[in-house]
């Protein structure tokens, strides 16, 4: 049941409206941060208002009129979209809170620019989540790339600039070189219609050979999903301030990537049609390869944020892998994993940032015994780790469960092995950190002087996200329902 | 470069020669260009439509009067373009020697006297060419060039300063602009009286004679406009080029 509504528009606009406010209030940091918070809460509230409507089975739609022949700029809120929006908008509040603490704690420069870009990128994220057709999706995808660029290069030094260059060249390059032609090809083939539909708008209009190429172009082209070989922007983008890393790796950027891939599978082709074409296996193997390789690389990283980054690549691989299985359970697992991984990974990044703010430590090898210094932070870190690995009492288990079930359903035993191996690898690169943090003695006298937690503004968000991770294990119903709207899995 | 040029030229030449085989024989009265409706119309109907015996003039100033307006504009552009590119405005440039004796202080006596005798005649002939463009070869453009040439001759014989007193730079520019204003203004007058741009028949109410005569008279007017511009610009081109834009002394 589709109904016209202004809600998606307003939701999208809220954070955009905050931008001029942020710029105008640049002289008074408190008022400026207030504006951000107001927008963040408003956004979350609006998304929350929409959730029951979507759960009713309604689909909200808003259209700006045609921007290309046959293609309107269109918002369309369905289960998948609202789930992603929910995750993004809720985490925006926390990230903002954290960012305030982080930025002030480190007395960073250009905070106004930072918050303004932050608001733009969250708008773009919501735009992607609500996008009603491939063109709108692409539009906001590009806006996101551009608006996060200043965030990545925030420090402005040589390292940041080279990281930013890698970031932008990968994201823009792939989207222009692969997505754009593939999208126009879809447009030509589908006769000028690009709206996402449940069965996929390309269904039945394309052959296996072309379908293979278009699918690969779209999947790899949305390089924010971090699939190899276009993954290297992610570790390089770690030069950004930690709240940005959190935004990039947990909420906005990478999730937009996998979200786009899910849209491609469900909205563009339709899983049934892809099953007929029998072309998704290639994507599965690319994803599987990504999962294993990135986990192996993560093992060897000493820089904590880089380790987290490679872990993210692996987790994104899970999501793509899940959706490429084409089974309802697998897709549900993927959708759930967007949320679950977001909660887990953002906790981890927040912790990394908190450690940096409090202790100025960046490397894993320096974290020996830090659990005594920062027990709350490290506890949250442990929860986050469990969630990412997929161990009980965290939400990660739920999504992984569905993923594994999906794999079993589709009968791809080899991929099952991939899941198993990679989970072990995950455990290998996270658990030692936790172990050494709590159970080993610090070697340096530096660790004297009692507890030294990060500022409260940093600490609170990471506790909340850790709690969310745990909560989503016990009560994943809402997320499940929303995902079920897409896949039909109850 | 030479080789490249040679090859390019040979290719172009071969291309053009290949096409000549396809042309009607030279001077064939039955060729499409000569036999075509447009050409026949010009030859047969010019006298009916405009009462001008010289078809070239009629086609130039009326049927394709729009083209000719731009032709005049081309000349105008050349003139002010040359001034814009070459002219150096400085303090020393503006001071031309004054007084009547400057007329005679330069140049050979024989040449100067000859020039004094010939220039008015050339000018008269130029005006004759303009005025009789309807009946004999010539018209505004040719007459204008001759008028301009008469001043160039004067400048050559008596020195540029003397010529500048007769046709100063500022005056030349004004005359040149005035020429096009006459031409285009005449067209606008047609427009104001209800016709299309340059549709001379709409001027019938304010000109003597019938509609065809209105065309004929209007052609004279626009030819005069052309002559204005051409005269002034020809002299301006010469005076700038012969002094490297300083307008001090002639050649």
């Amino acid at each position, binding site marked *: 049941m589709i109904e016209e509504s202004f809600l998606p528009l307003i939701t999208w606009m809220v954070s955009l409206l905050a931008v001029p406010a942020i710029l105008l209030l640049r002289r008074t940091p408190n008022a400026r941060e207030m504006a951000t918070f107001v927008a963040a809460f408003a956004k979350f509230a609006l998304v929350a208002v929409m959730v029951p409507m979507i759960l009713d089975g309604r689909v909200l739609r808003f259209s700006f009129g045609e921007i290309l022949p046959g293609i309107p700029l269109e918002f369309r809120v369905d289960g998948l979209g609202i789930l992603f929006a929910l995750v993004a908008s809720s985490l925006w509040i926390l990230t903002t809170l954290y960012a305030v603490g982080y930025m002030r704690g480190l007395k960073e420069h250009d905070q106004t620019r930072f918050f303004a870009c932050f608001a733009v990128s969250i708008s773009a994220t919501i735009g992607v989540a609500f996008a009603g057709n491939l063109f709108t999706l692409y539009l906001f995808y590009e806006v996101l790339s551009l608006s996060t660029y200043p965030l990545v290069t925030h420090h402005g030094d040589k390292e940041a600039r080279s990281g930013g260059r890698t970031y932008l060249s990968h994201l823009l390059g792939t989207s222009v070189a692969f997505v754009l032609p593939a999208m126009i090809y879809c447009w030509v083939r589908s006769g000028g219609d690009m709206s996402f539909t449940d069965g996929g708008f390309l269904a039945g209009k394309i052959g296996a050979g072309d379908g293979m190429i278009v699918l690969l172009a779209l999947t790899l082209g949305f390089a924010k999903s971090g699939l190899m070989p276009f993954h290297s922007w992610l570790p390089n983008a770690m030069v950004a301030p930690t709240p940005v890393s959190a935004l990039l790796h947990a909420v906005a950027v990478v999730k937009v990537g996998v979200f786009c891939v899910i849209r491609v599978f469900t909205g563009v082709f339709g899983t049934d049609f892809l099953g007929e074409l029998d072309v998704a296996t290639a994507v599965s193997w690319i994803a599987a390869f990504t999962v294993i390789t990135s986990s192996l690389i993560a093992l060897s990283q000493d820089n904590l944020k880089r380790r987290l980054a490679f872990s993210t690549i692996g987790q994104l691989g899970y999501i793509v892998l899940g959706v490429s299985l084409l089974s309802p359970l697998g897709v549900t697992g993927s959708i759930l994993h967007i949320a679950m991984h977001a909660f887990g990974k953002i906790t981890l990044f927040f912790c990394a940032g908190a450690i940096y703010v409090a202790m100025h430590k960046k490397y894993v090898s320096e974290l020996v015994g830090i659990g005594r210094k920062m027990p709350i932070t490290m506890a949250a870190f442990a929860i986050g780790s469990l969630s990412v690995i997929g161990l009980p009492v965290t939400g990660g288990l739920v999504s992984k469960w569905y993923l594994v079930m999906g794999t079993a359903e589709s009968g791809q035993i080899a991929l099952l092995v991939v899941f198993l191996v990679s989970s072990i690898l995950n455990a290998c690169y996270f658990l030692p950190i936790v172990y050494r943090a709590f159970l080993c003695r610090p070697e340096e006298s530096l660790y004297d002087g009692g507890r030294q937690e990060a500022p409260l503004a940093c600490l609170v968000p990471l506790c909340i996200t850790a709690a969310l991770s745990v909560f989503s294990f016990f009560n994943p119903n809402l997320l499940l329902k929303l995902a079920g709207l897409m896949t039909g899995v109850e | 470069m030479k080789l490249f040029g040679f090859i390019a030229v040979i290719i172009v030449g071969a291309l053009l020669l290949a096409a000549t*085989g396809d042309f009607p024989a030279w001077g064939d*009265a039955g060729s499409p*260009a000569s036999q075509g409706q447009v050409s026949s119309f010009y*030859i047969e109907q010019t006298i009916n439509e405009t009462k001008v015996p010289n078809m*070239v003039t009629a086609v130039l100033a009326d049927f394709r009067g729009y*083209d000719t307006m731009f032709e005049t504009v081309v000349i105008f552009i*050349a003139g002010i373009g040359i001034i814009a*590119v070459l002219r150096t405005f400085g303090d020393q440039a503006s001071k031309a020697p004054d007084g009547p004796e400057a007329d005679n202080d330069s140049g050979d006596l024989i040449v100067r006297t000859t020039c004094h005798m010939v220039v008015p005649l050339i000018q008269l002939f130029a005006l004759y060419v303009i005025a009789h463009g309807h009946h004999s070869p010539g018209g505004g453009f040719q007459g204008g060039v001759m008028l301009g040439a008469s001043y160039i001759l004067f400048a050559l014989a008596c020195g540029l300063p003397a010529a500048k007193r007769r046709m100063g730079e500022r005056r030349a520019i004004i005359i040149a602009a005035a020429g096009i204003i006459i031409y285009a203004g005449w067209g606008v007058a047609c427009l104001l009286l209800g016709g299309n741009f340059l549709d001379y028949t709409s001027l019938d109410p304010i000109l003597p004679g019938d509609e065809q005569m209105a065309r004929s008279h209007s052609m004279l007017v626009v030819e005069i406009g052309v002559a204005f511009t051409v005269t002034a610009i020809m002299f301006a081109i010469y005076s700038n080029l012969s002094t490297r834009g300083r307008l001090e002394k002639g050649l």
Partner: protein
Amino acid sequence: MEFLAAGFIEENIVPKFNYWVYVILMMIGLFAMITKNNLIKKLIGMAIFQTAIILFYVSIGVKAESGIPILGHEQHHEIVEEGRASSEVIKKEKFANPLPHVLMLTAIVVGVSTLGLALAISQRIYGSFNTLEEDEILDQLRPGGHD
């Protein structure tokens, strides 16, 4: 073979020699424009090139046995004073096609305007480089790069 060549000449060159000569002139002009080193020489080539094209156009308008495209006095008189229809009096084979002439008046004007402007520019070039040879100018520009 000789017969063929003769036939070719008879069919293609003799009746169209004007066109052939225009092509030759055009090639001369074009070649000079491309290869000459001296700017003034280039411009002479340009003028030759343009006149060749004008020659071509004028050649289009020629009709064998035709006169200039101006009505004689008696024809003028017959039509204007006696009121005879112009199509009776005027035999269009007797008059050259006036249209190419008109076009070429414009082309000549364009040619001289271009020439004038080009000469002005070459004087400016001479003023700043003190030479009109292209290679010498380029030599002067080379070490400095940008100025």
